């Protein structure tokens, strides 16, 4: 690789931001002043490739400091990391949170996605735009994962350090304040407000949220923390995997894969090192449960990752955290630092000779990076594009090594499994869907939030618990990639098998209720916009199909019957090809919601 770098240099700010992350440059090849030693300096091949994974943190560093990524800054970062500038440009332009065009230091992202749209986001947005001058860039955003407090807005002000402020539920005035002076915006309410059942003694996964101080390791231990890790050390890695397998735990990230099986597959791979990845990219519209766990009980995730790593023989854990989740990132970082300081992460955990540490990586605005192979590419410093499976991650995952990638909720389930034992855990729920399950309930309900119920509760029970309002018209199950069901289908059991039999999907546990005041065609259009905007562009059915889907829904507008029939037929044909021929779950599921609205709700009929 013989790299060519353009001439423009970084500004002082940009250079400082990169140097703060990477340390000062060591040679003129990296952008330092020229010295004699440079003549004997060489870094290529493996050493150079070994730093590629720092590209995404580097782009964040620049974007956080300056608000956008200039050509000079990008070139400097490329020199420091020996990355071809064209590739770095391809990576920088992949993510929604970055800009390679100049923009104001403050960006205010106003969520116009499903729950927020139903809560009046378009008026909010118009109000904000009329109040804010050119010093702030207002962007209409996909779901920010704050649906329990819709409508939501997120202000990000570049600087040293970067400041963020959340306004939710947002009013024009509060959102404007958050954007114009994030430091003086009121503190976000505690994550407890997202858990209407908080304090209920029957809770398992959520029992500590709102009860423990999320910053205190001692408080976590006083509430049963680190008992599971001790138990794991007693059982040994094979014993832990046996417990997880016998518990019947199935992944909560959407694909419903048996967790014990994936752990076993990686544990038995002779190829080392093994990697553990926690998928906390949570970008499905309507999903916010992982955020609530990370904000309300961060040590639980640290402990759960430690147990998982011990079981699969991994010494490195990577927590890929959605870029917009800044409070969750701070709390997780604090928890990781505390755990490390107390010997609960590091070279010799609890004196038991197991070495493990966690690195937190921020995503930068890409739903597709929740797809595991795309997530690996993103962590490796490439564009977050999925790749063909097989080979599966258990064989060829992060950095080409055997990797377990698990959802946040999946991992925290391992703690009660070890605490109560597999047989007791397997008694919770139904035969094929064991354990407790988190549901993200939002929309037309009086008490939106994360609910924990044993598998087997029906849709109606969950909705009643959340105080569903009168005039229910439709429920979106599983988020934008899921499907709509009608008000006459409330007896669907919310289990993997129950939703499958009903021709729906549980997805990641999203339950969004919409009453008859919400214009459904607009919701469908919003879902179509989401998929068009989030398609990575790799494969044709999704890259072009999501555009044709959105166009057809635009054309249909409010039309029905014969006037809509041709476009519905077209949607069906394009939808079928997206489902059959797209490379990843994004494109494969991009037509689910529209199809279900037509077939189950009788829309456009």
């Amino acid at each position, binding site marked *: 690789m013989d790299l060519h770098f*353009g001439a423009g240099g970084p500004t002082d700010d940009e250079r400082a931001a990169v140097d703060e992350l990477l340390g000062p440059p060591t040679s003129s090849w990296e952008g330092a002043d020229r010295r004699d030693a440079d003549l004997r300096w060489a870094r290529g091949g493996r050493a150079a490739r070994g730093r590629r994974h720092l590209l995404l943190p580097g782009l964040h560093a620049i974007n956080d400091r300056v608000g956008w990524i200039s050509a000079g800054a990008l070139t400097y970062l490329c020199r420091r990391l020996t990355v071809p500038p064209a590739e770095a440009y391809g990576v920088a332009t992949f993510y929604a949170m970055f800009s390679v065009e100049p923009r104001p230091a403050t960006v205010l992202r106003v969520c116009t996605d499903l729950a927020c749209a139903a809560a009046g986001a378009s008026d909010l947005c118009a109000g904000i735009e009329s109040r804010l001058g050119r010093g702030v860039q207002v962007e209409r955003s996909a779901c920010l994962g704050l649906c329990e407090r819709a409508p939501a807005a997120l202000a990000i002000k570049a600087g040293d350090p970067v400041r963020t402020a959340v306004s939710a539920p947002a009013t024009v005035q509060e959102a404007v304040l958050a954007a114009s002076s994030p430091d003086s915006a009121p503190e976000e309410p505690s994550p407890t407000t997202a858990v209407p059942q908080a304090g209920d003694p029957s809770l398992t996964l959520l029992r500590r949220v709102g009860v423990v101080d999320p910053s205190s390791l001692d408080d976590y231990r006083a509430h049963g923390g680190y008992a599971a890790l001790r138990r794991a050390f007693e059982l040994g890695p094979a014993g832990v995997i046996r417990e997880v397998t016998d518990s019947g735990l199935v992944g909560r990230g959407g694909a419903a894969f048996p967790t014990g099986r994936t752990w076993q597959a990686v544990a038995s791979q002779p190829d080392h090192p093994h990697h553990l990845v926690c998928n906390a990219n949570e970008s499905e519209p309507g999903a916010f449960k992982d955020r609530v766990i990370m904000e309300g009980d961060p040590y639980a995730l640290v402990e759960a990752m430690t147990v998982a790593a011990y079981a699969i023989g991994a010494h490195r854990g990577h927590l890929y955290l959605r870029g917009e989740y800044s409070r969750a990132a701070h709390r997780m970082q604090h928890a990781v630092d505390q755990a490390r300081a107390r010997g609960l992460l590091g070279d010799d955990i609890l004196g038991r000779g197991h070495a493990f540490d966690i690195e937190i990586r921020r995503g930068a605005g890409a739903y597709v990076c929740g797809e595991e192979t795309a997530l690996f590419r993103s962590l490796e410093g490439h*564009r977050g594009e999925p790749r063909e499976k097989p080979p599966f991650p258990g064989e060829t995952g992060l950095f080409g090594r055997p990797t377990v990638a698990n959802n946040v909720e999946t991992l925290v389930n391992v703690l009660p499994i070890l605490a109560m034992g597999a047989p007791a855990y397997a008694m919770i729920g139904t035969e094929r869907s064991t354990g407790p399950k988190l549901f993200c309930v939002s929309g037309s309900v009086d008490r939106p939030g994360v609910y924990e119920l044993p598998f087997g509760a029906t849709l109606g029970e969950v909705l009643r618990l959340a105080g569903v309002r009168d005039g229910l018209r439709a429920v979106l199950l599983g988020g934008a990639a899921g499907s709509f069901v009608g008000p006459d289908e409330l007896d669907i059991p919310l289990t993997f098998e129950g939703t499958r039999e009903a021709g729906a999907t549980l997805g990641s546990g999203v339950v969004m209720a919409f009453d008859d005041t919400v214009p459904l065609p607009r919701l469908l259009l919003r879902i179509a916009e989401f998929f068009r905007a989030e398609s990575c562009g790799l494969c044709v059915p999704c890259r072009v199909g999501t555009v044709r889907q959105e166009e057809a829904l635009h054309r249909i507008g409010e039309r029905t019957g014969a006037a809509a029939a041709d476009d519905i037929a077209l949607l069906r044909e394009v939808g079928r090809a997206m489902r059959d021929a797209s490379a990843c779950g994004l494109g494969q599921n991009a037509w689910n919601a529209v199809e279900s609205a037509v077939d189950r709700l009788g829309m456009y009929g």
Partner: protein
Amino acid sequence: MTVTPLGIPRRLLEFTIDDEKTRVPEGSTLLDACRAAGKDIPTLCHGDTLTPKSTCRICVVEVEGSRTLVPACSRKAEPGMAVRTDTARVRHSRRIVLELLASSTDLSTTPKAAEWIKKYEAKPDRFGPDAARPGEGPRVDNDLYVRDYGKCVLCYKCVDACGEQWQNSFAISVCGRGFDARIAVEHDGPLAESACVYCGNCIEVCPTGALSFRSEFDMRAAGTWDESAQTATATVCAHCEVGCTLTLHVQDNEIVKVTSPHDNPVTHGNLCNKGRFGHQHVQNRD
């Protein structure tokens, strides 16, 4: 890349294609197997000298037990597979893929596109006159080759040829996302300010004519490009001692483009800028 390794013969796998038993060496793709069995599978992003990213999805086939269709160009054959290459589901996806491509891209110089559109009864016009297109004009920013991204299907072949699979120049990449994704050099600038070394190895693999020799581009614009009037002459590049095999394409006594045979064990179709574009000196030398 389909390289047949020498040495120990590979184990043979047995499975069925369209209900007929077939045997292929371990490591073969379904595409290798289907072609060996005489099946006509359309391909765009697959190239004989590259490992495909399976982006176009036109080669999809049905594999029993698989929830979705699978791209034949990258899926490895496994013993006991039951593969179907021409079911209604397969034909449907191929037709829609062609409609999506042809409604968003200029396929006029993509070999076989018209034939496939006819065969699969694709109707690209059905999305109406307002169907979005990237709407890129040709980029004529140097004397050697033209990038006409209005014809690009984003197959990733040029990126792979320029980068890790062959040239190691990494001058181009995919930038942007989704429908806005494009092939670009850094900062989407002109080629002259990029890392491009003008090897033309990207042109060699481009399946759509989005990348073409300047000579071809100009002649097409003037209406004088005529492949039937061209001869292809094999010769050896005299610029250095490697002596790469060249194929000179000549029309009206002028070299209009230079390629190299893809099955050549030295070049695999790749050349350096002297071999690829050095003929301009030959011609200018009167």
